[in-house]
Every structure is written in structure tokens, then in C-alpha cells.
């Protein structure tokens, strides 16, 4: 999908021409770039307008173009150049801590503010998701450039400085592994952003970037230094870091930073750890923030925890936390590991020195330069080196798996994936394993033959592809041919890859018009959303549209132009459905635009008095499927009530489960399983005919997501859940979700396979797809948000030191009917060292796997077991590290591998998450399970460990430079009764208003003078004051980052909504489970027990 290329991105290659031209020139639909922007804009508008009047207004259309285009593209280039630099710096690669930290820190501070601030702001509300990323890009791009060149990006002033700062740091980073790692923190920073991060960010601007960087590092340093033996050379830098801590002071910012700063002020290394923080506590709850800031650098794998002094002695990799013995009391809550927000953009080269370069954290803001391995956005491995034997892997306690997100949105500054057209012969492949040509296939015999890196077979080079080898043993044309030098390329598929003409883009909308749907306004909201989204459908004669409504019958609409008005065709047989017309139910968009609009307008009135309460969802999707069967396509269903009649009818088993508690206890998880196989069977058929189903559940009652979600899951679709649906607050989200659903990069009728070098096999694929043969997965639809987890297993011993390759090939059809094969390659080195494994473990990927597995187990196992599983995994990993890798230390210390030091926190958060909480509503849990099944790595962490930011003092921090203020730990200690907090997890957002908030602030933010006056059906409005504007900016920025519009809910202290908010504070002791500190102690004890 050239088309998918990031919005702003230029398609360099001629290949892309088809799409890119359009993309660039026509702002409207085709390009993501544009569309994203557009989205963004729309969102904005939505936001603004929402409250007041109908969402529809034209407003949307306007803004988009500006952004995406101009912004991004310019940005890119500069960016790329910059990128180059980092390369050189790499030299020192070794110490991750070092480089990165320094870089990161500075970066962080700036980073946050950085890209987003400048660029993002523009898009404001607009693009939720897609945009977000894109937007982000453009902004970022600027950031880079800014650093070096003029301040291209319009971004805020602050940003530049920051950026510059950032940039500079990276270079250092690169030198050592450290930098890389740091990078991530930056990115991640924003999401989780610990307060510290925030504060630090601010400061950066002020001070020279470099200094700041060091400062932070330092904090880390202490830890680092000790341990790093392996690759940690960076140690020295750390020491330098103290400056960091210093930074915090700089920031001096209000709440957060403040605490640390003061203490920190003296940034010097030693102080950091213990003293500063503890001291700090004074003002804000925050004190931790200080530490936080320090932490960020650590994210990577760096040492850096504040831990006790003892820590220092610890090996670099570890971040010991409080001593166990003493019990919680001895642990300083401010020093325990927490995600460190970082805002700096990290430049990441996928391979350096002919070795895979461990990727930055998934949540960080980074720009990838594809130097042979694919970008980690497309494919991540849980461990960035491959254990040579299954035993070694087992010993580590870790899991080996890939997270593949083949159409992931790239950073706008990244070079787009190049499209390679081999003409009629098609791409060169290994004749044995059918692996695609990639940079790791070795050409021999003057280039006449090549050896497959996957199966080891030697093939003849096709004559017209022959090229001589250079002195380095590589083909002379290797650098000109993307397939020989890039980890990700896209091949144009030939006829061989098609069993029919590539399918057209078909969109079928199916809307619930039952009594309930009408009454809660869901139908009107859906119609309005669809009607607005029509403009975003891909232009062209091949775009087809159909629409149907349903209650206890299914109503199709004959949209053919000749008719005076649409004709409604009712299919009443909901046990055995059929399509009411052979043609004309789905017609080319260009022929039915007017009818469609008219119809969407009249549907809400037409069914206004509908008294049919039943819903034949199953029959309706089946009927729609029959209409789409000949082409395949996207089926978008808006459903509001439980499927109660016709095919696959369900019962309200949640209620049954409740009344039947005694029996329910043991069987509770059965409610999370599909009620029967009907829908599954149907879904498999849908998938076979390339129909991808997305379900928008706008409901106020139990709808049995467990059963319904089978359909989207099997067909590569998605479930959207609006519960309890509110016209007021959810209409805008519905529209934006729908819009993103349609405009995001995506493909149809796809098939995916992952190939591995010999010695390891793909064990299982997990995600939203249909599997008919063991090796491949079929995806009726695949989009940029979908991630597939691939578990691996050894079937042989691998030679130590060799390279091991993974190749993911995705054959799909673009929106515009081109057949493409996207190939992403990842080659990692094989190791026999356990410590190496820990060093290069990818926390985000590991945790994502843990999360997905837990989600998968929920419906089939008793909850107690499911909750134990991740904890055991966590303990096993730490135990293994402690046993085999940690250098001597007192048994009283909990020692964490640097790379995985947040594992306990995330594990704790996981067992407190919606899905694993025993008190959750069935549908909420089902939705959660379903959401997790395809969740991408960058979104996995916020889902369980949301980002919380204070928003009552936005104004005072204006100078910060980062749009999104740094986050604070999820602990009630950090909540003040006079504060207002925003907590978001990438899908939902809660705004908590304390009990004694200054009425001035309330007035400014909510237009109400007391908490009580704020309507509980909350809609974020923008008032004419800087604080409100700022808040909107922040929210829009988050939307962009998350590619999601976020459901905003208001929580007030003292009522159930307030409880909801506090239940999200995972570090607290709640849900009947441990607080973070207790949990660490628990783990520590377990490890101690098992050690002995």
C-alpha cells in the first residue's frame, strides 16, 4: 500500500506514483496524509461544535489540507537528513544508559513539549487517531529540522529549543546503545509521562540541552554504572547526569517539577537517588516526579533506579527496589520504578554495524531509519537476540514472540516503504521456502546464486536480476535496490497472486433502527456519522456503497439513480436470510451520493416511532454479507441492543448469570465465551468471501460482546463500544471513530505469513483474523491499528552468533484495487548468553504478549488462574535474572533487570485491569478482551497503566512547551482535592474533578462555577480563555497520539464516577489487591522463597 504511506511522506519512488500523486495533490480522500489532517480538523471542529450544534457542519473539510501536506513533507526531509547524523554518532553504541539518557533527558524535556506542541497543536481536536500519528509526524519533523536548521516547524517557540536539544542528544545516544534506549523514554514519556519527566522537559529549553541530558542520566547513572558490565559502558555519562536532576529544578514548574527541582536542584549524582526525592515530597505529592525524571532514562534498560543506595552496588542491569524485608515501610514509594516520560524524538537505525539495533520503547517518539531491519513499528521481537536453544529460553522465563503490525503508521519523517515492481515475473523468491528476497539473502558465485536466509537453500539468480558482487561481497546494486537494503519493502503483486481481479472498495453500512436504538439516539448518531464520512470514502468508480437498516427484520435500500426515491426492501425471514436484489443494493458511490444522503437524513425520522424492540443482528449481517458476497468489502454495523431474534439469537445471559450466582461462580468465565457457534461459523464464511465486519456498539444495556465480537475478530474487523451511549457525548466519537476506520491505511483480502530461519517455527498467530491453513492467516481486512502476535518455538539448536531472520509477508489489496505484497524482515543475532537476553529484552513487547495471553485465557479459565499467570511469569523472569545474572547483592534486595524493571508495575496494573478484575461488567470485560486481541504495542501499556495528567494548572505551565503535561503516577497520593485530572488509556479518558477545586478554574474549564453544575453527560467545550484552550489542545494532542477520539467522562469526587476514577489508580491498594509497594514486596518474597 503505497497509499498508506504516511500522510506527509513523499513517495520518492516512481512506483508509488499512482497513489502518491493523488495523495499529495488531492487533499481529500485518498491520501492518508490529507485525510488524516482532515480528520484532525474535523475532530477539532467536532469538538468545538459538538456541544453547540449538530456535528455535521462543513467545518471539517477545511482545515485538513494545510497540515498534512505542507507540514509533514517539509519536515521529513530535513528529518531524514538529521537522521543521517545520528548514524555516525552510533560509535559508542554500547552504553545505552549513557547516550540515551543524556539525550533523552534533554530530549525528554523538550521532547514532550516538542513535536507535539508545535505541530500538533494545529490539528487540535481533529484527528483522533490517524491524524494523531500523522500529525505527530509533521510536527515532529519540524522539530528535527528546527533543531538544526531554521525552525521550520511552526511549532511553538519552546519546541524548537527543545528539539534542538533533542537532536543533539541523540547523536551522543547513538554512539552507545544507550541513546537508543533513551530515545524511547522520550517517546514513552508523553504517554506515561511521570511527572518528573514533565518537569524535566520544561527545563530543557532553558538550559542547553546537553547539560540537561547529562543531568538526568546521572540519576540513572548510579545504578547504571555499577551493573553495566555488559554493554553499559555508558556508565560514565551517567555520572554526568546529575545535571539532569538539576533540570528538574529548572523546570521549576509548578507542581510537579517543583518538588524535585528544589531538591534536585543540586542535581549531583549522589543526591539524586535517595535524598532528593524523599526530601522533595514536601509540596506536591509529586515529589516522585523528580525521580521520575530520572527514571526516564532508565526506561531502556538502564540501571537508573533510585533504589536504595545499595542499588548502586548492583549490577548495571538491575534496578533494585526497596528492600523487602522491612516490608512496605522500608520502601520509598518515590523511588520505585515508574515509567519515565520522555519527549525527545529518538532517531533509530534498525541496524548498526551489521547488527540489529534494539528498538526504542514502543511508546516513545522515534524516527526510524531502515538500514536493513524493518522498523519496530512493523515487527517487534520480545527479545532482541535469539536464544540459541529452547532451554536457554525456558531458563530465562521469558517468551519468544513477534508482534507484527504490518501496516503500522510510520512516523511522518520516516522514509516511506518503497514499492518494487518486478514486472511480470513478480518478486524474486526462494524456490524452496518461497521466502521473498531480502537484504539478508547472500549472493554468491559472482551473484549467480543466492542463499536463502530462511531455509538455507541455494537458488539461481534469475538472469535479468543478475548483478556482480562488490568487494564486500554484496551486490553492487544493493544500495539502489530497496529489496536488498531495506527491512521493509512492498512488491507489486502479479496475476499469480490473484484468484480474481483485486476487489473494489465496498462499504456496506448496517444500522440498528430498533426502538431502543431510536430512543437513545444511536440511530441518528450513526446516520449522521455515515453521512459525514461518505465524503471520505475513496474516490473513484470502484468505490461501492450499500446501506441497510434492521430491527427484527432487515431493510435494504435500492439506491439506483433512476428511482425517484430509494426503495426500501424488507427481508423479513430472519432465520434464513437472502438478499432482496441481485444488484442495486450495492452501487457505485458516484451513482448514489444524493440518494444516500437523502436516505441517511430520513432514516431517523422514518423509524421514529418504531416499536420493534427486537434485533436481528445475526440475520442482518448475514443478509448484508450475501449482498456483498460477490465482491467482499467492509461491513460496518451499528448495533444498539442485544441480538434477540433470528439467526444466532442470544439471551440476556448476563442477567441469568447474576440471578444464578451459585452456579455462576465457577462458570463465570463462560459468559465471556461466545454463546454458541452460529456466529463463528458465519464469520468464517464472511472471511472466506473477504467481508470484514466492524461493529459499533452504541448501547445502554448488555449486548453480549463476547458473542458478537467473534465476527469482527474473525474477519479482521474491530469492535467499538459506547456504553452507556449518550447522544451528547458519544456522537462526536462515533463519527471520528468511523472516519478513522475508513480513512486509516488499510487493505482488503489479505493473507499473511511469517517465515523464520531454520530452527524456530511459528507456533501460533493471535489477533483478528481467520485461519484456514496452519501456515497462513486470512485477513478480510487489515489496517494500521491491527497487530498480530506470533508465538515461536524452537525446533532445533541455533548456531551461536549467527543471524536469525524473520520475514512477514502480507499480500493485500489496496483501497484503489492494487495487489501488493508487503514484506518486513527482521534479522537478529543468536546468543547463548542469558544475560544478553535480559539486556536486550523488549519490555513493551513482552508485556504486550503477557497482556494478550491473559486476555486470551480469560474466557476459558477461571479468573484466579488467569490472574496468577502473569504474576508467575513476572516472578519467574525476575527469579531467573536474580539467579543467573545478578551480581552478588544482599538477599534483601529486589533486583530487576534494567530492561524489565517496569515489569512488576505493569504486571500489577494488568491484574487490576478491566479484563482481569472480578467485579467488571461482562460486556466491559469482553470488550477489553477483544480490544486487547488486536492491540498494538504502543497502546498496550497505556491500556493497563493509563496516563494521568493534572489539568487544573495548565495555564501556569504554559511555558513548558509541551502540549501534554507530564504525567503523574497512578496513585491517589498524587491526587489533590483541589485538582482536576485527566486520565486516559488510549481509548477512554476520565476527567476527575476534586471536591474543592477553585471555582475560577471550573468556570474557565467547564463553564460552571461549582462541581455540581457540571452536567454529568460531559462534553468538552472550548471556552474563550487560555486555560480552556489549552485543555482542548491537550486533549486533541492526546487524541492524535492515540489515533483515537477518546471517550471523555467526567468523574466527580464522592459519587460512583469518582469511584471509577480511583479504581484506575493501579498503584493504590484497591480492588482487593496490593498496592505497588506491596506488590514489589510480594514478588521479592516469592523470589526469595524460590531461591532457597
Amino acid at each position, binding site marked *: 500500500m503505497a497509499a498508506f504511506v504516511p500522510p506527509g511522506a513523499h513517495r520518492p519512488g516512481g512506483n508509488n506514483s499512482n497513489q502518491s500523486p493523488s495523495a499529495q495533490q488531492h487533499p481529500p480522500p485518498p491520501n492518508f496524509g490529507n485525510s488524516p489532517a482532515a480528520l484532525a480538523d474535523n475532530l477539532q471542529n467536532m469538538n468545538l461544535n459538538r456541544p453547540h450544534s449538530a456535528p455535521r457542519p462543513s467545518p471539517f473539510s477545511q482545515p485538513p489540507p494545510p497540515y498534512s501536506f505542507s507540514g509533514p513533507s517539509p519536515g521529513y526531509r530535513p528529518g531524514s537528513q538529521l537522521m543521517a547524523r545520528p548514524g555516525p554518532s552510533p560509535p559508542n553504541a554500547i552504553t545505552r544508559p549513557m547516550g540515551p539518557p543524556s539525550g533523552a533527558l534533554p530530549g525528554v524535556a523538550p521532547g514532550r513539549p516538542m513535536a507535539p506542541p508545535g505541530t500538533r497543536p494545529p490539528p487540535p481536536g481533529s484527528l483522533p487517531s490517524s491524524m494523531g500519528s500523522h500529525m505527530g509526524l509533521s510536527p515532529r519533523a519540524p522539530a528535527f529540522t528546527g533543531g538544526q536548521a531554521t525552525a521550520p516547524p511552526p511549532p511553538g517557540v519552546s519546541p524548537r529549543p527543545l528539539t534542538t536539544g533533542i537532536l543533539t542528544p541523540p547523536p551522543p545516544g547513538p554512539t552507545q546503545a544507550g541513546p537508543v534506549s533513551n530515545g524511547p523514554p522520550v517517546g514513552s514519556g508523553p504517554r506515561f509521562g511521570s511527572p518528573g519527566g514533565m518537569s524535566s522537559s520544561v527545563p530543557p529549553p532553558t538550559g542547553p540541552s546537553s547539560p540537561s541530558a547529562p543531568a538526568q542520566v546521572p540519576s540513572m547513572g548510579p545504578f547504571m554504572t555499577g551493573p553495566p558490565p555488559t554493554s553499559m559502558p555508558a556508565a560514565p555519562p551517567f555520572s554526568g547526569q546529575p545535571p539532569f536532576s538539576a533540570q528538574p529544578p529548572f523546570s521549576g514548574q509548578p507542581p510537579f517539577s517543583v518538588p524535585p527541582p528544589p531538591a534536585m536542584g543540586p542535581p549531583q549524582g549522589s543526591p539524586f537517588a535517595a535524598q532528593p526525592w524523599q526530601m522533595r515530597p514536601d509540596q506536591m505529592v509529586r515529589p516522585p516526579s523528580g525521580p521520575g525524571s530520572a527514571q526516564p532514562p532508565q526506561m531502556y534498560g538502564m540501571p537508573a533506579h533510585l533504589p536504595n543506595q545499595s542499588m548502586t552496588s548492583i549490577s548495571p542491569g538491575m534496578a533494585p527496589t526497596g528492600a523487602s524485608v522491612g516490608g512496605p515501610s522500608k520502601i520509598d514509594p518515590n523511588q520505585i520504578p515508574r515509567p519515565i516520560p520522555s519527549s525527545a524524538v529518538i532517531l533509530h537505525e534498525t541496524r548498526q554495524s551489521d547488527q540489529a539495533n534494539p528498538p526504542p520503547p514502543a511508546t516513545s517518539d522515534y524516527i526510524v531509519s531502515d538500514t536493513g531491519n524493518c522498523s519496530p513499528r512493523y515487527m517487534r521481537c520480545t527479545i532482541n537476540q535469539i536464544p540459541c536453544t529452547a532451554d536457554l529460553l525456558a531458563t530465562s522465563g521469558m517468551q519468544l514472540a513477534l508482534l507484527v503490525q504490518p501496516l503500522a503508521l510510520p512516523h511522518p519523517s520516516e522514509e516511506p516503504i518503497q514499492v518494487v515492481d518486478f514486472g511480470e515475473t513478480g518478486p524474486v523468491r526462494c524456490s524452496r521456502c518461497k521466502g521473498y528476497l531480502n537484504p539478508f539473502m547472500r549472493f554468491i558465485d559472482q551473484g549467480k546464486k543466492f542463499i536463502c536466509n530462511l531455509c538455507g537453500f541455494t537458488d539461481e539468480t534469475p538472469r535479468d536480476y543478475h548483478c556482480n558482487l562488490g568487494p564486500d561481497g554484496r551486490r553492487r546494486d544493493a544500495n539502489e535496490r530497496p529489496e536488498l537494503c531495506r527491512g521493509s519493502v512492498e512488491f507489486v503483486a502479479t496475476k499469480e497472486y490473484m484468484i480474481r481481479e483485486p476487489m473494489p472498495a465496498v462499504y456496506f453500512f448496517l444500522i440498528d433502527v430498533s*426502538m431502543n436504538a431510536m430512543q437513545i439516539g444511536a440511530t441518528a448518531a450513526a446516520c449522521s456519522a455515515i453521512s459525514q464520512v461518505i465524503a471520505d470514502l475513496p474516490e473513484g468508480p470502484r468505490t461501492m456503497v450499500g446501506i441497510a437498516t434492521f430491527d*427484527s*427484520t432487515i*431493510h*435494504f435500500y435500492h439506491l439506483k439513480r433512476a*428511482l*425517484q*426515491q*430509494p*426503495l*426500501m*426492501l*424488507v*427481508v*423479513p*425471514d*430472519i432465520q*434464513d436470510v*437472502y438478499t*432482496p*436484489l*441481485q*444488484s*442495486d443494493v450495492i452501487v457505485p458511490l458516484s451513482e448514489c451520493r444524493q440518494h444516500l444522503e437523502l436516505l441517511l437524513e*430520513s432514516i431517523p*425520522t*422514518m423509524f421514529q*416511532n418504531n*416499536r*420493534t*424492540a*427486537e434485533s436481528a443482528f445475526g440475520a442482518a449481517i448475514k443478509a448484508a454479507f450475501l449482498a456483498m458476497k460477490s465482491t467482499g468489502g467492509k461491513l460496518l454495523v451499528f448495533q444498539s441492543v442485544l441480538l434477540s*431474534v433470528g439467526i444466532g439469537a442470544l439471551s440476556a445471559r448476563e442477567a441469568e448469570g447474576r440471578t444464578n450466582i451459585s452456579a455462576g461462580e465457577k462458570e463465570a468465565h463462560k459468559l465471556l465465551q461466545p454463546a454458541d457457534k452460529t456466529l463463528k461459523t458465519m464469520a468464517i464464511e464472511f472471511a472466506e468471501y473477504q467481508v470484514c465486519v466492524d461493529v459499533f456498539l452504541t448501547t445502554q444495556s448488555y449486548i453480549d460482546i463476547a458473542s458478537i465480537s467473534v465476527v469482527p475478530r474473525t474477519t479482521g474487523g474491530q469492535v467499538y463500544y459506547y456504553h452507556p451511549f449518550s447522544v451528547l457525548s458519544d456522537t462526536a466519537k462515533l463519527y471520528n471513530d468511523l472516519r478513522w476506520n475508513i480513512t486509516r491505511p488499510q487493505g482488503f483480502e489479505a493473507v499473511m505469513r511469517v517465515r523464520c530461519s531454520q530452527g524456530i517455527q511459528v507456533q501460533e498467530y493471535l489477533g483478528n483474523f481467520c485461519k484456514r491453513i496452519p501456515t497462513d492467516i486470512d485477513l478480510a481486512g487489515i489496517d494500521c491499528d491491527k497487530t498480530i502476535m506470533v508465538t515461536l518455538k524452537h525446533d532445533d539448536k541455533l548456531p551461536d552468533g549467527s543471524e536469525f531472520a524473520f520475514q512477514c509477508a502480507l499480500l493485500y489489496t489496496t483501497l484503489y484495487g492494487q495487489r501488493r505484497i508487503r514484506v518486513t524482515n527482521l534479522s537478529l543475532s543468536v546468543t547463548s548468553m542469558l544475560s544478553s537476553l535480559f539486556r536486550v529484552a523488549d519490555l513493551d513487547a513482552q508485556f504486550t504478549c503477557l497482556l494478550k495471553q491473559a486476555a486470551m485465557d480469560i474466557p476459558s479459565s477461571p479468573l484466579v488462574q488467569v490472574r496468577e499467570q502473569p504474576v508467575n511469569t513476572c516472578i519467574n523472569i525476575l527469579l531467573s535474572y536474580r539467579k543467573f545474572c545478578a551480581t552478588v547483592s544482599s538477599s534483601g534486595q529486589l533486583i530487576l533487570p534494567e530492561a524489565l524493571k517496569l515489569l512488576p508495575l505493569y504486571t500489577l496494573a494488568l491484574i487490576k485491569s478491566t479484563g482481569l478484575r472480578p467485579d467488571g461488567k461482562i460486556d466491559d470485560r469482553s470488550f477489553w478482551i477483544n480490544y486487547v486481541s488486536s492491540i498494538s504495542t504502543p497502546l498496550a501499556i497505556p491500556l493497563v497503566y493509563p496516563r494521568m495528567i493534572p489539568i487544573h494548572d495548565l495555564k501556569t505551565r504554559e511555558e513548558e512547551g509541551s502540549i501534554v503535561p507530564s504525567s503523574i503516577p497512578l496513585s491517589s497520593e498524587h491526587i489533590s482535592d483541589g485538582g482536576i485530572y485527566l486520565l486516559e488509556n488510549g481509548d477512554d479518558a476520565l476527567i476527575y474533578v476534586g471536591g474543592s477545586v477553585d471555582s475560577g478554574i471550573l468556570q474557565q474549564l467547564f463553564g460552571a462555577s461549582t462541581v455540581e453544575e457540571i452536567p454529568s453527560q460531559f462534553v468538552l467545550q472550548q471556552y474563550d480563555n487560555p486555560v480552556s484552550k489549552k485543555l482542548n489542545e491537550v486533549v486533541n494532542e492526546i487524541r492524535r497520539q492515540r489515533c483515537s477520539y477518546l471517550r471523555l467522562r467526567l468523574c466527580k469526587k464522592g459519587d460512583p464516577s469518582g469511584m471509577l476514577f480511583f479504581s484506575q489508580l493501579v498503584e493504590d491498594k484497591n480492588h482487593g489487591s496490593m498496592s505497588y509497594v506491596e506488590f514489589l514486596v510480594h514478588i521479592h518474597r516469592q523470589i526469595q522463597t524460590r531461591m532457597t
Partner: protein
Amino acid sequence: MAAMDPEGIDGVRMTWNVWPRTKVEASKCVIPLAASIAPLRPHQDIPTLPYAPLRCKCSAVLNPCASVDYTGKLWICPFCFNRSHFPPHYSMISETNLPGELYPHYTTVQYAIPSSPLQPQSFDGSPPNSHPPVFMFVLDTCMIEEELGFAKSALKQAVGLLPENALVGFVSYGTQVQVHELGFSELSKVYVFRGSKEISKEQVMEQLGLAVSGRRAAGAPGLQKGAVQNGFPGSHSGVTRFLLPASECEYTLDSVLDELQTDQWPVAPGNRQSRCTGVALSVAAGLLGACLPGTGARIVALVGGPCTEGPGTIVSKDMSDPVRSHKDLDKDAAPFFKKAVKFYDGLAKQLVSQGHVLDLFASALDQVGIAEMKVAVERTGGLVVLSESFGHSVFKDSFRRVFEDGEQSLGLCFNGTLEIICSKDIKIQGILGPCTSLEQKGPAVSDTIIGEGGTTAWKMCGIDKSTCLTVLFDLSTSDKTSTSGTVNPQLYLQFRTSYQNPDGQTMLRVTTVTRRWIDSALSSEDLLQGFDQETAAVVMARITSYKMETEDGFDATRWLDRSLIRVCSKFGDYRKDDPASFTLNPSLSLFPQFMFNLRRSQFVQVFNNSPDETAYFRMLLNRENISNAAVMIQPSLISYSFNSLPQPALLDVASIAADKILLLDSYFSIVIFHGMTIAQWRNMGYHNEPEYQAFKQLLQAPQDDAQMIIRERFPVPRLVVCDQHGSQARFLLAKLNPSATYSNAHEMAAGSDVIFTDDVSLQVFIEHLQKLAVQS
């Protein structure tokens, strides 16, 4: 066409007007005891009484044949001899003050049953009265544009002709069935049913959201509101959704029709269109059943081809399979036939139980399956018209006639129920004609069943002025002549028909007839005096048709011949073994010729027709009155010439003359045949010249007469105008007695004609008959 009115006020004609006493005697008469009744035949003398009838315990209604004791204020029922007291409101009765039903010449009276809510359901379970008529149009869309256009305009015209309050519904179909919800105002809305799947009434109701007790209704309390409006208690919202008064939905229906396209589903080359007539009809029936059970409603189906999809299929979609022929049916080589008949039989049962009618208007060059659908049409008393095209006048004019008001109106009535009560010893075998047995057992039910039998009550969902039924009687085997014979020399039959007239009024018509018993052993002469040749011929034709359809390997010709010979043997005057001495009583003299023509008619010689045509002919044969039916068997021929007034001519090829014009009325078609000379003159345009006015008049006269016939007839006959030796002349020649064939052409007079056939002529036939009749 008899100028007289042989049926009189009663509309009853019998084969025998004096009855033999015993079963044995009756069987010797050869021609069965039968009555042809036209229950609603209008007659100016029939009084309408605005009150409910007075009934005897045996259910017989008070009639002129009852003996009345004016002083005792009681009456004796002629059927059961029971005495009943007059009720109080008859207290004024006296010899000079008789209620209408007792006037001796009012053997037929009509009661307009007052609509009283308290009145218990009338005996047949028909609902309270005063319902507007209901028309559910079912239109086939598997046709070429042009045909569909004709059909649509016919429909529009029909809707325009309907009374304003008539309820109208519309269903179109092709591959699938589309039920149009005319009451949905936002946009055109149709319910689509798959054509390939049989659907029960309950499913139709459920799926159209009309189920009473379904869960949907439970969730839709508002829906019940519409129930009582329009005076349809017990009915559903369906009345306001799918059936609307013509005045309200005419515009909607017009626009629906305007937008209606021919069926859009693809047809593979070499295949027939996929047409689900069966499902369409059952959906229409289900809808009516859900909305208006028990009220008068008709499904008016316009069918343009054979059903090829789903239940009721009569032929495969593959064009290389021809639609079944009589030969196929004979050889059991029609794979769909039995199944389809069974399906339509089920549909008929459903419609009858709902009291609804199926009218079939089939227009196609090929067959459409009337043979299979016959059962549903006939049992419900529906109308049927077969033509070649919706643009043809046979269809257009007939269709219009159905909806026209006034003098020519068909007088379509609904929900008829016929009950027959007869004197002791008389048994009813059954009825041939458009009705359904209600399975009401009684002592008067014969063990032998012919047609719709085993009952004394019949349902006629649709009934009109011309509807005619043939009742076949039997005598009880018990030979108790002495007892009953002495008591009463008269036999009585009472026919009671209740129905809903076009205005929605519930009516009851009572006809009481009496005939004389005779001891035929004594005098066959007397018996013969009561013989009705025409009726006998028609009854024989109906029985023959019935037997041909129901009895395997029935040899109609042989059976007719033997019957005729037996009749002649019994009633002819002759000396044994002397054919020349054979003569027939005048009251029997025409019968052999009727039989001769019947043997040659389309009813017996089916192989010249398709099964559809045969079914069509037979349905009309069974429902028309005796005169018309007789014309079907033996057409009438009128000759026009300069020399004389128009006069009936012999149905013989000898009647053809070069200077004559012949008008043949064979019921289904009317042929105007110009002799060669006439044709030449006409072609030269003489009639346009003033001095040849007489010629012009001569040309015009048969035209006028033909139009007169056409105007009165339903279905409208096909008019064929032809010239001697022209290709169309075959329509005439086929009906003539081939007295002159190529074998004896030399004997013929000039200007006459010959028929190229090997069929025997009437003369030869009679000769043989005489020979056989006199054989000892």
C-alpha cells in the same frame, strides 16, 4: 342462446324433471339425476326480505312448499314433516296476509340479514357483515417490458374502477416476492420473500410483523391501535399497512407501478426466468389470512409465465425442457406436476379456510400452469382468464369487466356458502363446479362421491351472478317406495346460499324446488317428458371431464358412446335389430347430436390442446350456466345472407356458402366467416359505395351480433374474423360436422367447402348409433 328463460326464477335446471322412485330405476335412466343451479342468478322477480329467515329444526327455511296451519299458527316442514310454531312476530299471518317467503311463486327469496352485533355468527361462521371488498393484486414481473406495461396499465385502470372503500394490496414477484407496504408514507417499502422456499401462513404473518401473539407484537403495544379502525375488529395493523382503501392508495400504487421494473435477477442463457408464482400466491394468501380472515377478499393474480422457482414449480428452468403436455401427463412424464398440484391444493385449503378467492389472469404464449393452479382457482370460486398477451382484448376487456360496475358487472360476491337439504331418500353425491366441500355430514350424503362431495354444505369463497354448480343426486338404496311414496308424490330440494354481496351486505338466498316422483317402471314415457336434453348433455360433459381428470385410463369416447347407446336403447322406439325402425322421442332427439359434438370437443379430444387450455376450458364448462355450456359443446351457427334474415344454420360444413356470412359462437371464440364471394366484394370495397348499403349492412350485422355476445360474456371471447379459405377459417371448420370431406367432395354443391378430415360425420355416427341401439 335461448331467448327463453329455461331456468326461471330459481336458476335450477335438472337432467330429469320427474324422478324415478328407486335407485335401480334411476340407474336404468343412464343419465344421472342432476341439477344445475345458479345460486346468484339475478332475476327481477326475486323478493328481498329484510329480516332473518324462519327455520325448521332440520334447518330448512320456511318456504312456499310448507303447509301452513293459519289458525294453529304453525307450519309443517316439507322435508322433515316437523311442525313448528310461528314466532310472535309472525302472529299476523293469515291466508291473506302472507310473508314473502310463503307466496307460492316466490320459490326463491332473498333475505338481507340485518347486521346485529348480537346475532350469533351465521351458520357458516361468516363474520359480521358490511365489509368493503378487498383486492390483493399479485403481479408477475418476469415479462418483457411491453407486456409488463400492459399489465401495469390494466392494474391502474382496475384500481381506478374500484369503489373508494375497497381495500387494495399489492404484491409483485419474479425471482422473489415483494409485498408492497402501501401504507408506509416515507418511501416505497416492500417486504421481500425468497421465491425458492415454501412459506407457511404463520411465517408470513410473523415476518410481516402481523403475528398476534408473536413476541414482536408484545414489544409493540402501539401496533394494536389500528386494529379496530376501518371496522375490522379482530384484524391487525396489516390493514393499515398493506391494505388501503382504493381512494387512499391509488396514487401510491400508481407510483409503485411506475417504478416497478421487470425482474432484475439474472437469467442464464438458455434458461427460463425464475418465477416464483407459488410463493407469491402463498404470501398473498398469508397476508390476507393475517389481516382479514373470514372477510371477502380476492387475490387477483396476473401471471405471465410458468412457475419455475420454489413450490408450485411446473417446469424446470432449462428451456430445453418443454412444459408438460397431455402426453407427458398420460405417461407420467411430468416430474413437477403432482408436487405442484399438491402445493396448490394446500393453498386452496388455506384460502378456503380464510374465505378468500384466487383469480387467475394468465397471459403467455406458452403455458403458465393453469392445469396445476386449477384446483386453487376452482375451489375458491375464482375467475380465470387465459390469453396470449396482456395487451390482448381477451385479457384487457375481461379484466376491466371484473371491476366495472353497473349493468355488466359480474356481481362479484364473497364468502358464499351453499347448503342443500332434500327430501328423504335423496342423497347428494357431490358438486361439480367452483366450490369446496365443507365436509358437513348428514343423512343426505351419498356414499358415492363425485366432485366436491361427502357433505351437504359447500364453501364458495367467490361467487358471482353467473356461477353455476352441478349437483349430482343419488337415491337411497332402501326400497321403501310404499311408505314415502304414498305420503307424498312430490320431492323437495332446498338450496340456501349465504354470501356477502359487493356492498358488503350479508345475504341469504333460499330456493326451494319441488319435483314429482314417478314410478318409471310403469312409464318411461312420463319419465322422458321430464328429460332436459341440453342439461343432460352438459352434465354428461362435466362428468366426462371429471372422470378424465380423476380416473386413470378413462376412455371418454367409449364411455360416452356406451351411455348414448344405452339411452337410445332404453328410450328409443324401434324394432329389435332393425336400425331403420329406430326413432327417438322429440325430448331426446337432440341428445345424440350433442353427444356427437361432445365427442369431438376440446373437452374430450384434449390432445389438440395444452393441459393449461384444457384446464381452462373445463373450469369454464363447470362454472357456466347450461346454455353457455351447451354452446361450448355444440357451438351455435348463424347464417347471414341477402335472401333472408339471420337464421340459425346447421353446424355443418354444408352451411358454408360463398355468398353467406356465418357467425359461429363456440363460447371461447366467436368467428365471423365471410363466404368467398362476400370476401371478394368486401375487398373490392363495395360496402363503401352508397348503392351497396345493403351489403354494408350485411357485413355489419354479424359484427353487431358478435359484439353483443362479447359484451355479455366473461371471459371475453376471442373474436376471429376470417374469410373462406383463409388460414383463420380453421376456427370455424374445426367445429363443423364434416359431412363433406375430401372423400366425398364431388357430391358437394358449388361454393360450399370440404373439411380435410377422417372424422366421421354426424350422419355416419347416427347410423352406427341406430344399429347398435337396436341390437338385442
